[in-house]
């Protein structure tokens, strides 16, 4: 199912802008299915059937992913539950090297005969591809781990929470927004459980259980007389957590001009506040275009990090493997080899991390059986590394993969996907409030909005949810029609302050798209509030 078919199925039209990146999903399954898991002994048997069949057909390397992917989407608007969609997808994907080339095939027929035939098909495809081979695949060495497992450290499995409890929460959120003066609200809960089993001819048998959650909403306020409307989206983040994310805790709230959330989210409070703010937005002053110092909250900055740091440091993009779709990268190998490419100001330290608890990217092992890691991408403003996988690691002189391989489902071939990429907090003690005190002419932006960046990741434009004007160290009121345009290197060099660790929070994308056929992946980006000086702000108001 394509994203937009899903949008239509879910009854969400163009207004649901925040859901522009809805995923490919599996087959819907009934709500009351017990959330069983497949016995690991059975998975090993099936995996061995594939490994043996591929080897006998001439594969020199094989990996097998047996996946059971569960999704639950609850979709409401105003006082109605519009749809509850449960999906399950169970099957096997087999990837081989034969004749020096990759081949891949998958099936949802989970008997040993079908699996053996699928393995043979993967080998046949590899041999076909080998006809056009220029350089044989070179895999970074990876020792087998034997039989191991990893589970996401969740406190409450969201799939065990009764559907009614989840739907009631969304309806109470809607009620709060409508009582607060909103005309419309759509609220949504997306839950994901990936039960993944990986086996390879290197001798790994890895069983993993991964959970993700994303509660969100969009509030709309209309002024029929003028024909104007404004929206305000939730300030939640998608997380690699269980239902505990939706159990609010005062210690996880950051109170200020708007309440922001750390590791627990108060959806009701955010809806109440959102309803009031969307009313304020209607009356807000339209921004005067020009240069401003921007104070960017982590609920906003994550997307700028994602687009301007996460994507250009993907090695496959740098090498040209994504040239036909997502694009290439301005961070060419010569810039990395020079060891002094000035990506940002010396304050800018950015890490890749597949181990961070509660993040969307956290797993024990990636989808080619490599243990996950943490490493520097930008160190004191200088480009020092990329993100890569087994068949490209040698290109940057690594003798191991960085564990960035991922496939969205059993039916999709795994490839390089972004780990969590995060801006490190500032070293000295600094709060966002203190940061704002020193700004003469600026804008504080919270929440993610419109986003666009070129195919080599130089020129970007971002909007947000809430814009507050700063004058002489004080927030003086709300602005609207704001977007900023910059160039990646210029922007990160204008980073003049980063708040300390106590302000660090994760944002992220549930549905990051890449590849052909396009695959979705989930990834987090952490930061503390940061200041960027003299950024170009445009006014986006138009009349039709």
């Amino acid at each position, binding site marked *: 199912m394509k994203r937009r078919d899903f949008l239509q199925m879910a009854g969400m039209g163009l207004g649901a802008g925040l859901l522009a990146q809805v995923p490919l999903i599996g087959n819907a399954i009934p709500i009351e299915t017990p959330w069983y898991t497949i016995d690991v002994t059975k998975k090993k048997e099936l995996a061995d059937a594939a490994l043996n069949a591929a080897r006998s057909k001439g594969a020199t390397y094989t990996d097998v992913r047996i996946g059971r992917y569960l999704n639950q989407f609850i979709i409401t608007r105003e006082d109605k539950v519009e749809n509850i969609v449960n999906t399950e997808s169970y099957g096997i994907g087999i990837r081989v090297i034969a004749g020096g080339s990759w081949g891949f*095939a998958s099936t949802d027929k989970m008997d040993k005969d079908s699996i053996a035939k699928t393995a043979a098909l993967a080998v046949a495809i590899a041999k*076909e591809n080998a006809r056009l081979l220029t350089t044989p695949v070179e895999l970074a060495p990876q020792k087998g781990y034997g039989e191991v497992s990893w589970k996401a450290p969740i406190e409450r499995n969201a799939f065990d929470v009764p559907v009614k409890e989840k739907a009631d929460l969304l309806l109470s959120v809607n009620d709060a927004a409508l009582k607060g003066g909103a005309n419309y609200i759509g609220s949504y809960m997306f839950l994901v459980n990936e039960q993944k089993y990986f086996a390879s001819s290197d001798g790994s048998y890895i069983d993993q259980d991964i959970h993700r959650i994303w509660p969100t909403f969009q509030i709309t306020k209309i002024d029929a007389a003028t*024909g104007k409307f404004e929206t305000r989206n939730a300030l939640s983040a998608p997380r690699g957590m269980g239902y505990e994310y939706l159990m609010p805790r005062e210690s996880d709230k950051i109170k200020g001009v708007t309440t922001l959330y750390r590791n627990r989210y108060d959806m009701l409070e955010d809806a109440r506040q959102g309803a009031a703010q969307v009313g304020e937005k209607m009356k807000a002053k339209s921004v005067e275009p020009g240069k401003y110092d921007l104070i960017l909250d982590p609920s906003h900055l994550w997307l700028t990090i994602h687009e301007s740091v996460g994507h250009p440091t993907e090695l496959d993009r740098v090498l*040209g493997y994504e040239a036909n779709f997502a694009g290439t990268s301005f961070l060419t190998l010569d810039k990395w080899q020079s060891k002094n490419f000035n990506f940002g100001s010396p304050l800018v330290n950015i890490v890749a991390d597949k181990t961070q608890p509660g993040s969307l990217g956290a797993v024990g092992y990636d989808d080619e059986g490599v243990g996950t890691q943490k490493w520097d991408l930008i160190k004191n403003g200088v480009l020092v590394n990329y993100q890569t996988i087994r068949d490209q690691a040698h290109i940057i002189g690594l003798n191991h993969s960085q564990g960035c391989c991922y496939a969205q489902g059993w039916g999709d071939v795994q490839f390089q996907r972004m780990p969590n990429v995060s801006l490190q907090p500032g070293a000295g003690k600094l709060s966002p409030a203190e940061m704002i005190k020193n700004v003469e002419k600026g804008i504080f932006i919270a929440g993610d909005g419109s986003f666009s960046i070129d195919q080599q990741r130089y*020129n970007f434009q971002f909007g947000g949810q809430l814009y507050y004007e700063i004058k002489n160290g004080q927030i003086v009121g709300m602005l609207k029609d704001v977007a900023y345009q910059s160039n990646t290197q210029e922007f990160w060099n204008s980073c003049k302050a980063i708040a300390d660790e106590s302000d660090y929070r994760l944002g992220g994308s549930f549905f990051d798209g890449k590849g052909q056929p396009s695959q979705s992946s989930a990834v987090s980006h952490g930061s503390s509030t940061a200041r960027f000086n003299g950024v170009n702000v445009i006014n986006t108001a138009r009349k039709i």
Partner: protein
Amino acid sequence: MAILKQEEAKALLQKVLSYSKADECEASLRGSEGGNIRYARNAISTAGDISTMSLSVTATFGKKSGTATINEFDDSALKRVVQRAEELARLAPENPEYMPLRGPAEFKIAKQYIDATAAITPDSRAEAVANSIAVAKEANLEAAGYVENTTGFNAVSNSKGLFAYETSTDVVFTITTRNSAGTGSGFAARGFNDVKKLDTVSATKIAAAKANSSAAAKAIEPGKYTVILEPVAATYMLENMFRGLDARSADEGRSFMSKQGGGNRLGEQLMDEKVTIYSDPFHPDLPASTWNREGFPLEKTKWIDKGVVKNLAYSQYWAQQKGVQPVPTPSNIIMEGGDASLEELIKSTERGILVSRLWYIRLVDAQTLLLTGLTRDGTFYIENGVIKHPVKNFRFNESPVIMLNNVEALGKTERSVSIESYRSYLIPPMKIRDFTFTSLSDAV
């Protein structure tokens, strides 16, 4: 197994419906099989085949519905999926917007299925790629491209006796060629029901010519320019607007189709009179679905007629609320063009920019449908009717509604693919005045 014949699908759906005790029950089947091959750096990177089929059952008691889906098809699995849909329906809250299922109807067939496309093999995909790579190598360029073919069927049946069935085939090809210095890039995209219309060699030649002629681009100041959008650029820009041709969001006051003071813009002259946009599932160059999920037949429908908003889509529920006839969401979109060739459009331009392709278009403001995005893969400066030189890429901030008010001329309509959804459209190249570029990009 993934592609059932009409009789097989009908028999399976009838069996499913016979298991239901609900007030109303609808069952639908969807299956597809196909394959893809991806290449980069003049070599194949990945390739695969996939085949899937799934059954979805919606059971309703009163106004309470539940949906369950399964990808197993033995009798016990079929009984289980019905039972689970019914259990869920009993648990579900009442949906005040539930509309009763519709009874039998006749649906004409559009020729979406072509045998030759269904017969594509891994071998023929690899062959198409080999030919494309050879063209790129000859032009001293690196090719990255993608070929995907899909054969699919959809069938639906319900307890009121409705049955509909369709099959389709689709093949999509996209190609990017770049020079080794990274200073020139070209692109082409093709999408057809019939693989016999796909020529990967000529498409790669076009991409190669763009790559070689776009090298050494000069920077010119951003601002308002007359632009000529090639069909692939125009398609991507307009696709964002086509999805908003909906009455409900307009009536609710939250769409670019909302009218000041309430209601929608039906009957309003919203665009230049050269603009006519319609849908027609029976158009021979763009066959599409002839029925929708609610069980309505799709016919030729005008959406924008000489710039006037002629129709907006009404769901069954919204039509009932507003006391009008339902208007199904279209399954394809066709924009009428003119007689001019692309060359003639260029020749008639005193000063302007030729845009080969647009990239990363996102909504900035839903109120005005303001979009932002960038040019890519061949942007050229035109002076006195001739292409003078390539220019560096721009970021634009523009609304397709404003753009279609500023139409200077339209070329001949041709089949074009959206580079984001991979859906095909019939769209002309178009010359637009006062298109707003807001900054420069160093990207190639």
